[in-house]
């Protein structure tokens, strides 16, 4: 496939990037690692006039972490850098588990955390060449007026296919966003709109600058389980992230469960937090939460596996993750957090 034509602007500061993005509005697109944007450009899913290459902005790089402000990852931090960060397993095991599952090592060397959190939603009917799409008259999301997943509906169901977002939801991450009006910070959960066509809450001229994780959610045990056809490279067909804190008596002190690739947004299973807190392990309780997870999941025919199978795997993964975290010392938050 070939690339469409565009101009490339390479700002050297966040202020400059914001100015360029604000000036060009919907005509501009941000590129960092390129692993998501470039194939989509080649498929003509986007037609930006200006590509804003932010890789030269030093301020967007690097990980800092201390016990006062918690973890801050610049948007350009690569997934490899996070996977290899020496404290990830000790402080935020769910994040390590999730980033290690993204695509393969070469994609992780290029792909950034900012990019992974702003990933384009995916659908079998959308992520295809222009020729392929046009033979069907396009779809709701692109060049058409019919959704092939839910014909008759006016909503796009393209799925959220990033792995790091559900993990970061389970540790209550926040996003730092720069825009023409200055900087703002929002909970990651408010960033996602659960709309396949309009997936994230970024206004004109806005740029994700960093991800913050509060100290209060450090040392939770955690794991991310991912369904895919191959054990490498593939996007998730379903994903379950679980983070929990268990005290010395085996009582759950905090727990979050979040899902990927079964909705247009990464989604917290809201019932999990309240129903698990203060409880001891029981098989019935775990099954109940697994059931809540499949009530949150709305898998449709957007992906290379059936909705029924993906829903079953959400239930299985949730149950196994909770069993594993509750009954073993994996994630080893125990010793430090007490």
């Amino acid at each position: 496939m070939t690339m469409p034509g565009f101009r490339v602007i390479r700002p050297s500061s966040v202020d400059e990037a914001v100015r360029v993005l604000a000036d060009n509005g919907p005509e501009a697109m941000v590129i960092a690692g390129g692993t998501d944007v470039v194939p989509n450009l080649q498929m003509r899913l986007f037609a930006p006039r200006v590509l804003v290459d932010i890789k030269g902005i030093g301020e967007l790089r690097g990980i800092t972490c201390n016990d006062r402000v918690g973890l801050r990852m610049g948007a350009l931090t690569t997934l490899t850098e996070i996977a290899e960060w020496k404290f990830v397993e000790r402080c935020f095991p769910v994040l390590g588990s999730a980033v290690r599952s993204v695509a393969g090592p070469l994609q992780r060397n290029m792909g950034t955390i900012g990019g992974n959190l702003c990933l384009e939603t995916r659908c079998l009917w959308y992520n295809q060449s222009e020729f392929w799409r046009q033979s069907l008259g396009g779809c709701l999301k692109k060049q058409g007026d019919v959704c092939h997943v839910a014909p008759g509906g006016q909503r796009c169901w393209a799925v959220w296919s990033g792995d790091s977002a559900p993990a970061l939801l389970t540790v209550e991450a926040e996003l730092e966003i720069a825009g023409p009006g200055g900087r703002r910070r929002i909970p990651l959960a408010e960033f996602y709109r659960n709309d396949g066509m309009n997936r994230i809450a970024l206004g004109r001229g806005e740029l994700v600058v960093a991800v913050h994780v509060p100290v209060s959610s450090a040392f939770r045990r955690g794991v991310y389980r991912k369904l895919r056809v191959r054990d490498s490279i593939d996007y998730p067909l379903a994903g379950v992230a679980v983070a929990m804190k268990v005290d010395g008596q085996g009582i759950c002190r905090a727990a979050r469960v979040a899902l990927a690739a079964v909705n247009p947004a990464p989604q917290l299973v809201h019932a999990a937090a309240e129903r698990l807190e203060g409880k001891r392990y029981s098989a019935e309780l775990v099954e109940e939460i697994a059931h809540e997870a499949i009530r949150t999941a709305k898998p449709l025919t957007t992906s290379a596996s059936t909705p029924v199978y993906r829903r079953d795997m959400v239930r299985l993964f949730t149950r196994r993750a909770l069993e594993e975290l509750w009954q073993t010392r994996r994630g080893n938050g125990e010793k430090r957090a007490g």
Partner: protein
Amino acid sequence: MTKELIRLKVNGETHELAIAPNKLLLDVLREDLGLTGSKRGCDDSSCGCCTVLIDGMPMLSCVALATSYQDAEITTVEGLARDGELDPVQEAFMSWGGAQCGFCTPGFLMTTHALLEKNPDPTLDQVREALASNICRCTGYTQIYESVLAAAQKIREKRKNEIAISK
């Protein structure tokens, strides 16, 4: 589209090139510099045939805009051999049948080279993990993994000898 004048450092040599801003690094290497070792396989960052080293880190040149890597040291498979002598990784792939049709081989060589620079004594699991982004349709991977482990051993022996000589 107006071309842009860029500077690229490839295999130790700096080139000044006038290229379209939407040109991918893989195409600049193949078309403008004649370095056709790096291959276009999948065209969407999922096969690893286009792997080159960017500042020592293996990356996919089919999703990299050439203009973005002007300050980087780029190494392609053509830059692996030094002074007419093959890299130990290349030799091992030859001796252990790590290449059949050869299309994916440059990508495997680059990823392997980077792995062994970082870890000259990898376990089989570490090799499998490091090569998980590279796809081969011929070998079934077994010979590739054997080649990588053989290359690792060769590199360790070579280093041991160098240390012995310098003592």
